[in-house]
């Protein structure tokens, strides 16, 4: 009991000190609380180039129906097998570096649209950035992703087990 009480007392001291250091540091460095509201992590794109743009469900659907787009699923292979946007290909972000040969199979004349689960993930943004850097122009990010696509009952398919 004495241990817990001592732990609490010292803990409060540490938290107060940490709070003070945290505020002073972020204020001096103009980060976090003192750098405006949270935003999406910036994409590292070479200067002068247009970064991949985000598209909404309407635009994603329209590109899907036009047949001029290829959806690239950045989720894990397991999630892809369980269900994905019809006609999409799977390139998990974590496997990007080891599957460079896969890039040669991607069409250069189509719009590549990356997606992941939805608002809870950022892998579609990072994959789009990598594809853009690899020389694919016209890459788009469908940030609503799998969740939004299925909530609109748009065409999906799954890999047969």
């Amino acid at each position, binding site marked *: 009991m004495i*241990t*817990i009480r*001592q*732990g*609490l*007392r*010292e*803990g*409060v*001291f*540490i*938290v107060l*000190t*940490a*709070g003070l*250091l*945290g*505020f002073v*540091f*972020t204020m001096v460095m103009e*980060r*976090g*609380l003192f*750098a405006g509201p*949270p*935003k*999406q*992590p910036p994409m590292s794109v070479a200067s002068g180039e247009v970064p991949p743009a985000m598209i909404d469900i309407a635009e994603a659907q329209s590109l899907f129906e036009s047949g001029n787009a290829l959806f690239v699923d950045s*989720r*894990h292979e397991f*999630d892809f097998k369980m269900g994905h946007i019809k006609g999409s290909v799977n390139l998990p*972000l*974590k496997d990007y570096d080891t599957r460079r040969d896969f890039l040669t199979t991607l069409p250069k004349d189509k719009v590549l649209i990356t997606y*992941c*689960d939805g608002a*809870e*993930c*950022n*892998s579609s943004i*990072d994959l789009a950035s990598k594809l853009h850097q690899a020389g694919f122009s016209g890459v788009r990010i469908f940030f609503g992703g799998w969740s939004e696509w299925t909530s609109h009952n748009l065409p999906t398919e799954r890999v047969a087990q």
Partner: protein
Amino acid sequence: MKQILANDSLALVARTFLGFLFIVASIDKIADPVAFANSIGNYKIMSGTLLMLFATVLPWVELLCGLCLLAGILMRGSSFLLSSLLVVFTLAIISALLRGLDITCGCFTQDPDAGKVGWMKVVENTGLIFLGLFTLFSTSVKFSLQSYLARQSVKRL
């Protein structure tokens, strides 16, 4: 049990391991509080100013606790805080897994290429909680600044 809690070598190893771990974990978060706030935000537990407050203070708590454990001062407070934090982190991860959230942990790095949260993380954290509780209830103060300072003050008397 008392013998284990009084074991100097075990206590030193546990303290050093936890200390290093949390110092390393805090560096990326201190350097980029916004990325850390985004990582926490992905858990969909808190948002707005509270989220930014948390992202501002928490990394420093981790850093101070890590340093205190390594130096051997305020060891009870550090162990208490780290154990409590680990319990909260683990509950957040379990909650994210149960809600089917597809997110990265944000535990040690803010790199989006880092692994996603999974049940393995829960197992790892449970081990760390036991380690934190061990350092909290450990009665060994050998190789600590605290015991060195105590010896110095006794010598002065």
